[in-house]
């Protein structure tokens, strides 16, 4: 079985774009209740831009991820856009000079992206952000090497994290100001992760 390659990246971009075209409104409505309401559009713009360059992505996985990071940074400077750029940059450095990454490395990749986002974005686990969803993914992906299994486990993990945090208040970002109002609402960043995973799984 092959690992993560530029070809998988191309597939992933199209799959995520397909689901975003259909569901970006959901994110925008949710984000509008707590933040500035641009999350759906931010992601849609980012993935439309990636779709536009995916065929020119180089086979070197590090260079391909860097091209993606650069392109996203050109079309989005919102906070979630920045998190996406950070993750893509982390992947770029991690896979610099190789054409293929083992699926068993996904847990490590997500962990490293999480650490960078946490450090740069000054958020911690438990603040009710996308970081909590990613932590859930790392936990279940550890030790797995089959991409379908990783995806399935990751989707379940994000669902449980959403359930776990729904009735807690947000502790960072604009939603923190409306902490009371955030109780009972899903964190838009976690839902974004859920939707993107659904896209990859094509469900």
């Amino acid at each position, binding site marked *: 079985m092959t690992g993560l390659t530029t070809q998988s990246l191309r597939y992933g971009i199209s799959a995520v774009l397909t689901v975003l075209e259909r569901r970006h409104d959901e994110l925008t409505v949710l984000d509008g209740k707590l933040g500035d309401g641009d999350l759906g559009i931010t992601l849609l713009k980012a993935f439309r831009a990636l779709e536009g360059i995916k065929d020119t992505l180089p086979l070197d996985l590090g260079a391909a991820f*860097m091209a993606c*990071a*650069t392109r996203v*940074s*050109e079309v989005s*400077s919102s906070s979630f856009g*920045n998190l996406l*750029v*950070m993750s893509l*940059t982390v992947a*770029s*450095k991690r896979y610099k000079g190789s054409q293929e990454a083992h699926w068993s490395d996904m847990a490590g990749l997500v962990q490293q992206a999480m650490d960078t986002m946490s450090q*740069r*974005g*000054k958020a911690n686990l438990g603040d009710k952000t996308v970081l909590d969803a990613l932590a859930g993914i790392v936990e279940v992906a550890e030790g797995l090497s089959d991409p379908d299994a990783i995806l399935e486990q990751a989707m379940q993990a994000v669902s449980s994290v959403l359930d776990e945090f729904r009735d807690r208040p947000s502790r960072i970002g604009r939603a923190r100001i409306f902490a009371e109002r955030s109780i009972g609402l899903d964190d838009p960043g976690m839902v974004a992760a859920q939707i993107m995973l659904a896209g990859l799984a094509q469900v």
Partner: protein
Amino acid sequence: MKKISNDPFDYAEEALKGLVRAYPQYYQLVEGTTRVISRPGEAKPGKVGIVSGGGSGHLPIFTGYVGPGFLDAVANGDVFASPSVSQISTAIRTASGDAGVLLLYGNYGGDVMNFDMASDMLEDEVQCATVVLADDVASAPLSERHKRRGVAGMVFTFKIAGAAAEAGLNLAEVSRIAQKAADGCRSMGVALSPCMLPQVGKPTFEIADDEMEVGMGIHGEPGVARTKLAPANDIADAMIEPLLKDIDLRRGSRVALLVNSLGATPAEELFILYNRIADRLVDTGIEIAFPLVGRYATSMEMAGVSTTLLALDDELESFLTAPAACAFWKV
């Protein structure tokens, strides 16, 4: 409050466009952008590039200090908002003349994140070093200096780093000198009236006609005390005393002194304050080697003033007094 603009959403870009048209000898818009300004022409091979950036609404900071002996390129965000990672990357590439680039910017969360991301992404392309500017003593105690914000004192580091780069020093040396300038710099401000964000259309904070706020940040961040508007000498003392407590200046020390208008405060009032500040420095045996009075770092139409002290040694003084030019400051 009143404000001059066409479309509030075009405020930042129209201002930059006019700046470049008025002074093409100092500024050009980098091709394909509306927010990145550089010196005209190509980056000079072998010279360390100096890049800054931050929100609009503070002219001459940041982009006004592009010029020979100052900065090479600046990424400009919306009013009081960080420039994007992409704009910062463009500024870095534009300023890069193969000797590396020094990033100099104020200590604000969004700017730190975006500059770090940009230099991270360009790691294989351009060697970057960073000196974060954090001169505002009101924003955190000395024990938490890393939390302090960057205000008017940033201009001294722009000048000194720019001169060191112009002199042909390498990236490590330019960074060391810039860091020394940043470390020796302290500022303290007093705000009398707010400014208005063009896209919001309301004052950034409320303050009564007979009040002032000591230590307020340049975006209206809360200060250390709100009091009745005091006589000029008391306002001067409210700025200079905390600075003298915060920085270790022995008798015989030489300093650069900036008495800066936040925008609306006139030169006359700056000079009235200058008298008292100069008296206080003379009393403590400190020599003003380099005075600067005027509008060097603003918050649009905010009324108020800030005072900056920079402790000088021979090295810093030689770079501070080296020739340099931009539309707002010539040495």
